[in-house]
């Protein structure tokens, strides 16, 4: 064979690569600043005091909460997803989308509602006393104030993440696989445990990891229910001890937990053997459950929905209606919430789009974007807010001035870009490479391809991404609490302030508004997901 005269095509830092780098920098800066400041300046007496008296407690409480939350999320999400994906039973079509509704209510809102439902004067215990004639001192009743209670509330609020990923995985099982298992004599239970569950495991872990990161990052519910988690400790170090650098050092542990969760999730995904290999692809057709099993499943799904959404939200509506709606100024915080969430969504969407498009262009951008987005997402709002406060303190801007709002929008984007990047990237990857090549052969340049092919094709993903971003930002509490200018409340901040003051009635309206504002997008999202599933099953 003759020697080939070859040229090398050098890797250049293209404009796309550069843009990705800038986007990645914007996403990753706050968490990096927070961690580095914590590492280099977070020592001293307060740190020693916290290490010797509280660190172990914070960490233990956080791990206990994560443990119970895991159990409850698996219990809520996996069986419901399994039955909704593969079987028909009374109410299945409603549960299919309704089980996503709890996403609209943040954990702290559910904690206010459930605390009110289960306290001594609440409806449950009152009913119990009315029915039995006992007095409050005559019986024991489980208290929501503690790690198990917090786990219950967080599982209620966050199980839909695992439900959604599990449902997608179960629906993607090839009918051939299930039929093969059945022909080999496997019982439905064995098909579930030995065929479906192993295949869906990475997806379930992905949803679970997401929910657990949110749980670890939660400040609102934990502080309200008096559980001393790491998040509460960090906030206290910043707020009560006025030691942001110490708080940032504490944040290390929280980040470690988040990365640990991401690591476990990746490991679960990395182990092979979960790919479908049946080339003849058929989506499973639903089997109708017999009457008794069907009713049992309906009851189970109803119970989950009642606990996670209907009971707490109804209670809030009840309390709010009972006490009248005139609790202080609500319009201002409402508009503030919408403005911030909108601005944050736009910035995060642009960053997510940049990262995803960059990732499609070359590996360098892919790596940089992924690391940055992952770092921002793993970092709880509290940590990012600390980073922003450090950066603010280097500038001449006032921490309490309007510049803080710009920083807040930045923090929102830093925190949630990954949440937006995921559906966008999924939508892009569904479009085969031949689409882009076809467009090129028809004369469309890179920009035209983005506008005329990529974006329209990714539209469903883009819509889902924007909705997820908006709802997440609307619910965000700790970073907003730390960075908002004086007297510039959002609904989340207002609800939290009232609830901490034991003015639950006043907290209900902002809580309900957050839930209501989140509800529209969540319903849209859930209908879209359900429709996509149906059209796939039909096609």
């Amino acid at each position, binding site marked *: 064979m003759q020697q*080939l005269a*070859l040229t090398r095509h050098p890797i250049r830092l293209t404009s796309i690569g550069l843009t990705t780098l800038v986007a990645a920098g914007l996403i990753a800066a706050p968490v990096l600043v927070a961690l580095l400041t914590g590492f280099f300046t977070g020592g001293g007496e307060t740190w020693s005091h916290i290490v010797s008296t509280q660190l172990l407690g914070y960490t233990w409480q956080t791990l206990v909460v994560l443990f119970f939350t895991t159990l409850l999320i698996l219990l809520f999400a996996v069986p419901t997803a399994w039955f909704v994906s593969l079987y028909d039973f009374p109410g299945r079509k409603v549960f299919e989308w309704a089980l996503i509704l709890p996403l609209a209510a943040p954990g702290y809102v559910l904690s206010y509602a459930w605390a009110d439902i289960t306290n001594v004067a609440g409806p449950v215990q009152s009913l119990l006393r009315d029915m039995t004639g006992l007095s409050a001192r005559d019986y024991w009743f489980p208290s929501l104030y503690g790690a198990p209670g917090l786990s219950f509330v967080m599982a209620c609020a966050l199980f839909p993440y695992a439900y959604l990923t599990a449902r997608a995985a179960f629906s993607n099982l090839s009918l051939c696989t299930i039929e093969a298992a059945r022909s080999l004599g496997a019982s439905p239970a064995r098909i579930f445990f030995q065929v479906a569950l192993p295949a869906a495991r990475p997806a379930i872990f992905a949803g679970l990891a997401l929910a657990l990161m949110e749980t670890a990052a939660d400040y609102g519910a934990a502080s309200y229910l008096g559980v001393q988690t790491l998040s509460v400790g960090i906030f206290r170090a910043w707020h009560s001890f006025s030691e942001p650098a110490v708080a940032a050092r504490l944040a290390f542990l929280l980040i470690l937990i988040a990365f640990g969760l991401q690591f476990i999730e990746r490991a679960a995904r990395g182990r092979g053997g979960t790919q479908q290999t049946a080339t003849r692809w058929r989506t499973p057709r639903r089997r109708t459950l017999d009457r008794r099993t069907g009713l049992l499943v309906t009851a189970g799904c109803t119970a989950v929905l009642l606990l996670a959404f209907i009971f707490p939200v109804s209670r809030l509506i009840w309390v709010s209606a009972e006490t009248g709606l005139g609790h202080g100024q609500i319009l201002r915080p409402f508009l503030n919430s919408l403005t911030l969430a909108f601005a944050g969504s736009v910035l995060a969407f642009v960053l997510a789009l940049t990262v995803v498009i960059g990732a499609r262009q070359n590996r360098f951008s892919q790596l940089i974007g992924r690391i940055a987005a992952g770092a921002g997402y793993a970092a709880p709002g509290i940590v990012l807010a600390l980073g922003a406060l450090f950066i603010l303190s280097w500038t001449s801007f006032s921490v309490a001035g309007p510049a803080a709002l710009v920083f807040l929008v930045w923090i929102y984007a830093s925190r949630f870009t990954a949440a937006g990047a995921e559906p966008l990237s999924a939508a892009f990857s569904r479009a085969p490479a031949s*689409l882009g090549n076809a467009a090129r*052969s*028809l*004369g469309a340049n890179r920009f035209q391809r983005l506008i*005329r092919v990529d974006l329209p*094709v990714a539209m469903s993903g883009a819509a889902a991404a924007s909705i997820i971003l908006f709802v997440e930002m609307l619910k965000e509490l700790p970073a907003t609490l730390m960075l908002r200018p004086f007297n510039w409340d959002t609904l989340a901040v207002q609800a939290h302030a009232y609830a901490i003051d034991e003015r639950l009635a006043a907290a209900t309206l902002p809580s309900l508004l957050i839930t209501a504002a989140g509800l529209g997008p969540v319903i849209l999202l859930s209908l879209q997901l359900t429709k996509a599933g149906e059209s796939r099953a039909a096609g």
Partner: protein
Amino acid sequence: MSDHKSLRAIGVSRVYDGKAVVNQASLTLEPGKITALLGQSGAGKSTLLRLFAGLEPVDAGEIRIGDTVLSSVSKHVPAEERAIGLIFQDFALFPHLNAIDNVGFGLSRMQKTARRKLAAEWLDRLGLAHRAKAYPHQLSGGEQQRVSIARALAAQPVAILMDEPFSGLDVTLKSEVREIALDAVKEAGIPALLVSHDAFEAMRDADRIAVMKDGIILQEATPEYLYLKPTSLPAARALGPLTSVARKDMPDTWKAQLPEAETYCLRPEALRLVHEDGVAMTVVSSKRTSTVIELELQLNDATTISAIGIGANRPAPGDTVQVALSPEFAFTLPADSA
């Protein structure tokens, strides 16, 4: 008939991780002719197509349309500026556009009404006028491929490249779509490349065939020439089955019909069943396909030989049949070609 120019690859190479997946390939695609690029998967066919299309740069050599250089080591006209149409195995229709808008995609410089009119004409030409408003997921596989062909041709490309265009379709659809599609391609009078791993398809559909293996174009000629006068054993095998028989094993009556050589390659058609005056042979196996009977015959103790027969009666294994030679289906290969 037209002023269309030929599309040429001149000694092009493409290297991945130090391995040449296309190795100094030269191929001329003549206007109005369909050239099939035939080879097994991994032969480098699709990469050569991508080099023609400008989806990848060349590492050596040139791609030219007429006298204009499109790709060389120092120059690369991007795919979007080449006006070379592409047809994909997976159709690659834009899922957010209906059939008529898919066809109109490449006509964005035209006025909207003119664009729609032209797109409608192309749909009509491919028998899809009634499906103009349908979205890709509402179209059958055959309809989708016809839309993609209309889309490529409507943009008036200077050449068209088809990457296994019919392999995603089931057999009954294939022949119908193929005929309509290839007629339209030929009518356009432009150079056309048909990448395929199916010798039957290549011989039936193409005016010329280039056989590719390990990144190298082994031979390029008309289907008949390639079938009967291949210059290498891999090229010969790429076009269809054959049996190598040493002259010393041949019956004397056959030797007399053939030029002097050490070894002959026989296509199955070289041996035909006759009623008398043939060489008697025992049937080892026989299978009926839709049109012919495929036979394995015992030539001597060590060698079996493939033959085909036609007729209503299929000889059973163990039967003795009379076999005559059609020397035009026998050929010899250059000594160093294996």
